[in-house]
């Protein structure tokens, strides 16, 4: 019962802060609402007994990626951002895509089956089991993901590198 209530709280704040993230005019405020969003997603992970995922969610998303966003956003001109138009001439396309995604989500929720109800607790899985699974059962996707990250890393360095010839 109490888990249900906590889950509903997390879910409500996640939806609300997600909406606020894309509707705020001030980009730094958007980033802050996104931070709130990440915190509550971490909360859902804790509720699912996935403490490791919760910690990684905070370390990677809140602690690293969002800081980089903030770094870029801080360099923007906030005044110009708040006076500029909210949409460009492609807006019908964007709305159409949005509706398609929304319909898909609706279909998934209506038709799909979920292993857990909201607020139910999963069996505890330690880091050890997670590691063993990653390196045996899911070895190939895991390695592919690492290679993609490596490519991104090298690509970024190549783009930023000064040509001194």
């Amino acid at each position: 019962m109490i888990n249900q209530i906590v889950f509903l709280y997390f879910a409500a704040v996640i939806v609300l802060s997600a909406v606020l993230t894309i509707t705020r005019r001030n980009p730094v405020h958007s980033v802050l609402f996104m931070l709130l969003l990440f915190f509550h997603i971490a909360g859902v992970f804790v509720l699912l007994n996935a403490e490791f995922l919760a910690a990684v969610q905070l370390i990677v998303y809140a602690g690293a990626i969002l800081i980089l966003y903030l770094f870029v956003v801080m360099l923007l001109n906030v005044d110009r951002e708040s006076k500029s138009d909210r949409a460009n001439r492609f807006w019908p396309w964007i709305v159409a895509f949005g509706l398609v995604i929304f319909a898909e989500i609706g279909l998934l929720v209506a038709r799909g089956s979920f292993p857990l109800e909201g607020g139910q607790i999963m069996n505890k899985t330690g880091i050890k089991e997670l590691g063993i699974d990653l390196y045996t059962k899911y070895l190939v996707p895991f390695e592919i993901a690492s290679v993609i990250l490596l490519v991104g890393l090298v690509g970024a360095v190549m783009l930023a590198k000064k040509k001194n010839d």
Partner: protein
Amino acid sequence: MSNSLTHILVSFAVLFTLLAVGGMLIWLERRLLALWQDRYGPNRVGPFGLLQVVADMIKVLFKEDWVPPFANKPVFIMAPAIIVTVTLMSFAVVPFAPGIQVVELNMGLLFFLAMSSLGVYSVVLAGWASGSKYSILGGLRSSAQMLSYEAFMGLSLMGVVMLAGSFDLNRIIEAQRDGWFIRYQFVGFMLFLIAGTAETNRLPFDLPEAESELVAGFHSEYSGLKFGLFFVGEYLGITLISSLITVLFFGGWLGPWLPPLVWFTLKTFFFICLFILLRASLPRPRYDQLMSFGWKVCLPLAVGNLLLTGAWILMKG
């Protein structure tokens, strides 16, 4: 019932002790710096100048709490609270002595890393919300610096985790009964010390506030209690890093004859003094030197240390 009561008492005791320690460290730092620089330091108010802290607190509390009109008000007010909250939260997982711990987490070390990675928001947001050139420069510097040094802070600790086989700080201490981890993880210790200094924005890594070029950087617009929070947050950060060094590399509360809490306090106090000595003796590097040191020296060293530790554990079987 009595169990949960002791739990609450322990939590409050930890909280109040930490806040008192944070305040007293301001006095300690000024006295020690004075000693090492052949001066007297604050010695007028009370015995040995101890009441200087109280005098400073009264001053900070009654000062006008001014929010500049060009600041972004909600973010400006929020920023100083973040650093104190996040640092105090990290202390929740620190085992001060057997039984004296706010919460026992399996993921203790990861929780600490998560919380310390959030501390950077305080500095960055303060710099941005102040709406002044110097502050935003300080904020930008700190976001780049803290990101770079966090990258190998986590890596430098993984050697300890591999040796202990757990992220639980209690198990890490228990694993050091036969010998402190500093014997195998000296490189990890040095890297963590460097990263910790950078995370707390202490000299020689205080470029976000470099008063000679940025006029105190990210907190130049702050006054009154908000400035006080930044100040206390910095000293809480030093205490946190010192106590984690103690737990991870120097056996935590383990030690002969004396009670565990005394051992923990002594070891932590030693590292706090080391932090102050660092400030007294080292000059500030240039910004590009700082960045290239982090990425080109410390990160490869941390990865190499991880590799060697893994190989050593495999070899021992």
